[in-house]
Each structure stands twice: as C-alpha cells, then as structure tokens.
C-alpha cells in the first residue's frame, strides 16, 4: 500500500495552506526572495493550483545589493515558468544612494528591505503575503504562527497572535490589515534540501561551490560581487572555492569555504554542518534578540 512520506506530508500541508489563503483573501502575493526557500515555495504553489496557473503574482523586493546571479536567475525563472513577478525597490533609498557601507547594515536593511516591503504591500494593496520563513531558522521564529497578523502599519505583536487549531486557519481581517503566511513553517533546512533534490527544483548557482572573489571581514567571507564593495587598506580579493547557505544582499552575506558542487554534496555538508544557517547573515548579530525586534518593525 502507498504511504505518505515525511516530505509528502509536509508538501501536502503547505499546499493546503496556499489554497486556504487564496480562497479566503482578496489580493494575495508571494514574496519571492530568489533563494532556495522561495524556490521550494514557488514549486509548492505550482503544485497547489495545478493545472491552473498560480493565481497570484510574485514580488521581489530588490535592495539593489542582491547578488547579480540572483537577478539573472530571477529573470530566467520568470521566463521559463511564465510568471508574473513584481520587482520593487524603495525609490527614497535610491535617491539617498542608500548602501550598507555608509549607512550601516541596520539602517540600510530598514530602508531598503523593511520599508521597501511595506511600500510595495501598500502600493498594490495586498492583504495576504506568503513568505518562506521556517520555524527551525531562529529562536523567535519557532513561535511564529503559520498565519501571522499585521496591523495597518504592518506590525507584528507577539502577544495578540491567534491560536491555530487543527488545520482550521482564521484568515479574517479588517480592511487595511494583512496577514503574512508561512507555508514552510514546519520544514527544516534539511527537508528543503532533500525536497529540492527529489523534485529537481532549480536554484541559484550561488548555492554551489565555485571559485569566487572574496575578502575576509570580522570572520565572515564577503564576496566581491561588483565594484561597489569598498575595499579597506590592505584588503585584496582572493579567488576561493566558496558557496552560500543563505542568500541576501551580497555585502551582508557570509560565504563558506566548500567544494560541494552538486546537491548530494551540499546535503552531505548540511548533514554534518557545524554552523546553523542564519550565522551567515550579518543582520541577526546586530543586537540581542535582533530578529524579534526586526519582526516587530515589519521585517519578514
């Protein structure tokens, strides 16, 4: 007799979430960060509505410092799958020539990512936004609901979240309020890789090891993706075999030395990984409980 595997159960649960949101909201959108979790989320959305097209657009908040390969990949996926992808960049940030070097990572992230996202949600009037966050990523995310409510100002209040009983989601909201929905809540990083492998889901080549130009800063390896990265005195980019476990803005994302050029090799590295996934991201280390603070402010 057929039996549902662990991944099939997770897949089915996520598809159920997608359909509930589409059935009960007016104007949903999927936040597409171009990373591996977004790739899985996109794949699940396609499965949930097949043979129909995905009944909502994707949206990428482009902070102008994304890896170039991410943008190339985004455009390829847009074409290959005939997707409706909205790209938004905070125009105020562009005017101020916002960058993480002169303004610091906190101000930069707030303006380009958090504010940019809020702007885009307001402009298009989206009342539900799918995000690829997982509960295993970080301590405060372990307590995140699958349906997370945001005030009109897109703020998250950890004390007023609704209880989620069985698989009965309450997606009702007042005009102006919105929900963030996390269909991958119950997936672990390992599940994501295993699923990408089994379903042959395309991902950005940056996840695979390759010789790339890097400099070492505060123990992190930062890739010199373009000429905008200011080099400090004595810093000389060197070509090293690196890959990324997580993707964001290139000046804020640490690489790891690796020879893993195939998915099985990545999975093997993940199996014996000594560092949890978010350590590669500089923003989590800004302050104690920093993710929770960012979430309250409206960061995903």
């Amino acid at each position, binding site marked *: 007799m*057929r*039996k*549902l*595997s*662990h*991944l099939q*159960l997770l*897949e*089915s*649960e996520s*598809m*159920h979430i997608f*359909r*509930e949101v*589409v*059935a009960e909201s007016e104007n949903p959108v999927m936040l597409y960060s171009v990373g591996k979790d977004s790739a899985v989320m996109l794949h699940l959305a396609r*499965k*949930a*509505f*097949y*043979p*129909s*097209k995905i009944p909502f657009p994707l949206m990428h908040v482009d902070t102008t410092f994304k890896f170039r390969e991410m943008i190339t990949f985004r455009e390829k996926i847009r074409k290959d799958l005939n997707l409706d992808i909205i790209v938004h960049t905070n125009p105020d940030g562009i005017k101020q020539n916002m960058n993480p070097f002169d303004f610091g990572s906190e101000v930069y992230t707030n303006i380009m990512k958090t504010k940019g996202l809020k702007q885009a949600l307001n402009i298009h009037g989206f009342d539900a936004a799918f995000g690829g966050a997982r*509960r295993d990523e970080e*301590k*405060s995310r*372990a*307590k995140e609901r699958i349906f997370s409510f945001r005030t009109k100002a897109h703020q998250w209040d950890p*004390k007023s*979240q*609704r*209880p*989620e*009983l*069985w*698989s*009965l989601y*309450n997606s*009702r909201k*007042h005009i102006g309020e919105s929900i963030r929905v996390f269909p991958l809540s*119950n997936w*672990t990083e*390992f599940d994501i890789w*295993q699923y990408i*492998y*089994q379903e042959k889901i395309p991902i950005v080549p940056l996840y695979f090891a390759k010789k790339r130009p890097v400099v070492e800063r505060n123990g992190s390896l930062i890739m010199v993706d373009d000429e905008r990265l200011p080099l400090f005195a004595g810093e000389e980019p060197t070509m090293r075999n690196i890959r990324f476990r997580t993707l964001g803005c290139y000046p804020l994302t640490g690489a790891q030395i690796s020879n893993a050029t*195939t998915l*099985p*090799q990545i*999975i*093997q590295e993940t*199996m014996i990984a*000594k*560092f*949890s996934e978010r*350590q590669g991201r500089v923003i989590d280390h800004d302050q*104690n*409980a920093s993710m*929770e*603070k960012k979430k309250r402010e409206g960061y995903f």
Partner: protein
Amino acid sequence: MNIQNAEISVEKYINDQEKKSLLRFITCGSVDDGKSTLIGRLLYESKLLFEDQITALEADSIKSGTQGDGIDFALLVDGLASEREQGITIDVAYRFFSTKARKFIVIDTPGHEQYTRNMATGASQAQLAILLIDARLGLSTQTKRHSYIIKSLGVNQVVVAVNKMDLVNYSQNHYNEIIAEYTEFAKKVGIKNFKAIPISALKGDNVIKKSTRMPWYKSKALMNYLDTVSFDNLQTSQPFRMHVQWVNRPNSDFRGFSGRITSGQIQVGDKVTALPSGYESRVTKIISMDADLEIALPNESITLCLADEIDLSRGDTLCSSVDTPKISDRFKANILWMSEDDMQPGQTYLMKIGTRITNATVMKPKYAIDINTLTHISAKTLKLNETGVCIINTDQKVVFEPYTVNKEMGNFILINRLTNSTVAMGIIEQDAKATSIELSTDKLSIDRDLRAGQKNQMPVTLWYTGLKWSGKTFIANALDRKLFANGNHSFIIDSNSTWKGLSEDLNYEDADRTENSRRVAQVCDMMNNAGLIVQTCFTSSFLSERRTAKKTIGEDNFIEIYVNTPLEVAEAQDMTGFYKKARRGEISNIAGIDLKYEPPLYPDIVLGSQTHSYEEAADIIFNELIKRGFIKKLSN
C-alpha cells in the same frame, strides 16, 4: 571520499530519511515542571545543535547564572525576549529533531494557567503528549487540566514523565506514589493507557540513556520510547471525506475540486456524494502535478475530477457514497473558551468547520466542566480557559461527524464577527437536531422520543386542508375517538379555539391568516415535542402556508390531508348560513367565493365527503398512521 562515493552514500541517506515516520508531540505540565529544560536536553543530547548555537547557549548560561557554571538548557528554547525576562514560556514553540528512526516536531506549550488555550492549541496538533510532573510536588491543577484537554482532544498516546527525580533522591517509593495517584486520576478522566517514566531533565537521567541512578526502573528511557511507540493513523480506516477548498478552473474545459483528504482514501472510479446537496457522481481523475494518481490517501492534497457537472463549491464536502456523514444545523458541542471577552450566550459568532464558514448562535452552556473534579457545574457563560457543553445553531447546513468518530470532521473554531479573533475551539459531540431539546434551558434530559415512547406512539401532525364545511372537523373528531380508544394521546386545534385565544389579536385577513397559520404550526411542533398526535382543522388555503408549516414541524412528522369536497357540496352541508352571508357579500375573504383556494399538489391522503363517510375517512387515516409506524393497533 571521492565525489561518486559521496553521491551514492547521500542517496542511500536520503532513501533512509524517506523511511522515517513523523511524530508530533506536545510537552505539557505546570509552569516549573521543567519542560524547556527537557526539550533543550533532547536537542542537546541528540547532538542536534550547531556549534554557534552551543556557543551562544554557553554564553547565555553564564550571563543568566541560573545553573551556576552549568548549561541552562531552557535558554535554548525560550525564544521571545519578553518571556526570557520573565522566565516563563508564553507561547507555542515548535522544535525539530530527528533520530535514526524518526523525525520529531516538538510542540512546546506554556504551563501557566492563563495560557491553557495555547496548550490546547498544541494538543490539537499532537499525536502524543508528554505530561511532566514535578517529583517534589506531585499532581497539580495543571496536570489535571492538561490531562483533561489531552483526553478530550483525542491525543491517544500519553507519557507521564516524573521529572526532577534528582531532587527526591531518585526514590522509587516517591515515584510509585505519584504514579498511583495519577493512575486513579487517569481512570476518572478516561485516559486508558499511559507510559510512566522517572526522569531528571537537568541531570539527564532516563532522557536519552537509561539512568544508573534508578536501577529499579526497568523500562525504556524517554527517547527510546519515543522512537518505538506505535501511533496509528486512525484517519486511514475512516470512510473517504474531503472538504472542497477551491474549485480549480483553468479554462472552460476543466473543472476540478481541490482539497486535502480528511479521511479515508479515494480511487478513480469511486462513487462520491457531494454534501450537503446530496448529488452523486464518480471520480474520473485524481490530479497531481507529477502525474495523475490511481489512488490518494488521507492528508494528501489533490484535485478531483468528477463524471458529472454537479453543483459543488468551497465549503462543501465530498464523501464516499457508500458511507455518508450526517448533516445538521444544530449541535451539542464541547467548547474551550479562548478569549478574554466572556462568551455571550445567544450571540452569533462565525463558525469555521472544514472549509465552511457559517453564522453560529451559541446558547447558554448546558453545563461547564470543573476540570479539577471533572464534575458538571451550572454556568451562565464561559470565561477564558473555561470549558463546557453548549448547543450551537448554525445558519447553514453543516456536514459533520462526532469528534470521537472522525476528528477532522468534528472540530471547529468560533470567530468573533467584530474583532475577527478566534474566541473558541470546539468539538462536536452529537447532532442536537433529533432531540429538539429547548436550547436555553438548563436541564432537559427527557426528550420528545422518551415522552412519545411513554405514550406508545410517535408524535405526528395531521394537517387538514379543504374548504369550509368540507367535513375536516367531523373526520378529525371521528379519528380522535378512535385514537383515544386505541390508548393514544391526541389533540385537535381548530379555528374556534385559535381565533378566540391564541390569535385574538389578529383579523381574518390574508396576512393575518398567514400569521395565524405560523402560530398554529409552532404550537403543533411543541405538542409534537410533548409527544402528542395533533390534528389541525383550518381551510389552510395557500400552498405557501402549508409549506411553511411542514418546514416548522418537520417533514418526517407532517401528514397533509386534503378533504376534497366540491364547493356546492360544502355549501349544502353548511348549517350556519356562512356561505349565504358570503354570497351576499356580508363577509369577505372566503375561500371558494372571493378567495382562491390552492389545492395541495402532493397531499399524503385525499378524502371527500361524497366518497367516504366520516367514519370511513377516519379509518383510512388511522390505518395510514399504523402503516407509517406512528401508532400500533392495540390488541383488544
């Protein structure tokens, strides 16, 4: 290792992963029973922490200083800043780990009494519960409260972990006393089986490895037990049900119904019934993006295509035609109130059950449950964290099964219509339609079936219709005598008794006659509830008023009797000069004269004074009542 070998071993590893089962368990107990420490210990000892997490943990432990130089495992799982400051877990947290045998999702829930609702949230998703008891303190209010919730939400596997054994010198006697006390309580609450394990989460005894400090404990350590305990998926053995989430229409040639299978399995060719409509069809295709399926299983998200174009949309349920669930708009339900605002009896909330959202009126609790003593107590409302049994009336027909039969078909949430917040979780105990218990009263255990059974009859309303002086009252009286002689309890309602009392405020006009008819139907329903057989003798001219009466009384106990006497015969039988007055225009609105009489389209019984004597007519009805099982003929 060369690349090729790496790939082969990873593939093997992935295949091994696929064989693992997934177990979701909840940890619960009082606030200081050590849940976070236990989970932290499970994660730490299963070597599932990354180095950066361990580094952060060691730094945090030294900073907080709660365990001296030792590691405070609780810091690992207490995520939110506010709760780290207060030292209590205030929300539901989900943790992940896996062993060689299984993948686990740990649902960590708060112990504090004010967060009982969060614990219930966790329990609604769990297949197993670990109930922690502090060895020094024994059973607490929370132990009992949580046991009750675990039991009512149908979490079948229970582990009782007596924690902090290090603080009672690993005493076997002490442990046995606690287990004896819990065994007694479990019996009362209805938990049939549980596994008891003495542990120390702080010191690691019997968590991963068997403890050498408690040689008297012969059974498995906690982790080993979690790895091997069997948890059957009861949803597999149930008949097929799927709530329709979304109608999939990519173009005019394709119409599929998307949903996640609630229970049972479905195969191409299977007959399915759409409820509440009742339309039947056959599954022609089971769609998934990978390939069409021949068979789909519980929990699987699929899209079904049917052979016929039947009316089916979100909120409806597709069910196996072989075994269909019930439909009702009135339920007896067990509710846990989750809002700071008390329940408002009689107020309408939104009820989400399956994929349907309907208005639902919650009546005053029949009783609340004192979880400590498990006794029923009278209550006017339910407050935050209180549980009780209420009757719920819904606007729409709802497809359901009792929670104990099929969990996913009998659970619901209530939503406040103004604030949109989820205010209660509920499970359906049974259909309340059949019993017709008056909803807002406290104790009504004697229902209409019992009353009627005492009288050796089934209640029924005989609704006569026909022109005035057609003979309705004569027939009814003849039947009344027969019924009385047969030992039955019956009663006649006619114009005289009604217009002089019940409806003395009304005029004999169209609209008022409809209102009179409505009142009479309500009285009939009440008399039926009292177990009586009722006969109504009115002209009852309109199709619509008879339709309304049938709905009020219920079609199963409504018999429409058409006394088809022509106008001229009725006029001839008139002994009061009623028709003469009408002919002279002294009275108006008289059926057959200046008002159209609408004869019934499908009467149950047709009689006429030309064809039957009153006694014969009464015999016909009497025999029909026997045939339909409302009465039994008294043997002499």
